[in-house]
């Protein structure tokens, strides 16, 4: 009986030391990590928004009351950032599309201009299979095809897009489809709310 207690207390001691060390380091590092994530996101936003126009761009949170959120499971609201140039004329919008891929939720930052055409994109986060789905981070493999398309032309060849459709990443149809559908869902939500025109027309 005494042996069990002695051994148990020893194990508890190990666990307590580990828990204290983890708690302390986490409390020190988590604000730094959060800030770095924020900065990386801002850098990506500036980079992607560069496709909308040059000069000093101004970011502002866009609030549209009737905007539906297609990513309800992942993010509470569809956060759309309006991009305006220094004279105040609106150039387009940025939003993050969440697509459930093969082994992670792929987050793609999309820049769309006021007529509903995608002008730029970058992958913010993905943990897809290295060598296959992870190629989604390499713009030359897949995402380059998104530029100059709108919601109606964002469809994979395999999913009935025909010759005009997007080429999926070889061996990674799930990832390609996830990204494509998530971006399309975001664009649809924007056009349903009247932020961008449907099918490249005018509002």
């Amino acid at each position, binding site marked *: 009986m005494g042996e069990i207690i*002695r*051994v*148990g207390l*020893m*194990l508890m001691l*190990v*666990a307590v030391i*580990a828990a204290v*060390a*983890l708690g302390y*380091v*986490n409390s*020190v*590092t*988590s604000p*730094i*990590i959060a800030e*770095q994530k924020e900065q990386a996101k801002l850098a990506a936003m500036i980079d992607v928004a560069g496709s909308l126009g040059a000069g000093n761009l101004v970011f502002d949170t866009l609030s549209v009351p009737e905007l539906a959120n297609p990513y309800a499971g992942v993010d509470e609201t569809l956060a759309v950032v309006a991009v305006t140039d220094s004279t105040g004329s609106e150039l387009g919008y940025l939003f993050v599309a969440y697509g459930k891929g093969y082994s992670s939720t792929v987050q793609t930052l999309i820049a769309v201009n006021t007529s509903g055409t995608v002008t730029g994109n970058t992958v913010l986060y993905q*943990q897809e*299979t*290295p*060598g*296959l789905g992870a190629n989604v981070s390499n713009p030359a493999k897949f995402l380059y095809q998104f530029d100059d398309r709108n919601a109606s032309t964002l469809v994979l060849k395999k999913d009935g897009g025909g010759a005009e459709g997007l080429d999926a990443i*070889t*061996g990674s149809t799930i990832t390609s489809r996830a990204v494509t559908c998530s971006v399309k869902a975001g664009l649809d939500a924007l056009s349903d709310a009247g932020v961008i025109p449907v099918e490249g027309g005018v509002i």
Partner: protein
Amino acid sequence: MSLAQNFSRGIVKDNPIFKQVLGMCPFLAVTTSVENALGMGAAATFVLVFSNFLVSLFRKVIPSKVRIPSYIVIIATFVTLVDLLMNAYLPALHQSLGIFIPLIVVNCIILGRAEGFANKNKVLPSVLDGIGMGLGFTLAMVVMATFREILGNGSWLGFNLLGESYQNQPLLIAILAPGAFIIMAFILGFFNIMEKRKRGGVK
């Protein structure tokens, strides 16, 4: 056993992958490209050295009845601390190695060396054993990844070897999961034949 042997044993004679057949999960999963293999190898070597160090340091304190849970707590804590600190202070390194770090906790080479060597030996031999086993693991990962990347993507360490036409239609199975098993079977078979030859068993 001399210190030099402690170090060199892990590289060829007792190679953790080819001889001990430990750590198969990362060996099969992360060898899709040489770059990934090097990253995983470096991260695992680092953790292996420090877990051997810590286990050897505390080998007299921890009661043998609860040694396995204690080792797991120590290793998992250490890996998580490294992950947090690296994320906060070395973000560039974390970007390239970060995805491998959580995978290392479940790498049985780490626990295998803690149980099989570090808990019976002094600190210096344990650290050397960790470096040797880590290098052996990295070497095995690179060998496997070389076959898989050349066959499956036509490149080595991202450098295009077999030309554009091969890359458009590669032997894709090599970087998919079944290819990992097939190539591993060839490599292990090769090592078994070599072993038998050495003993004069095969004509």
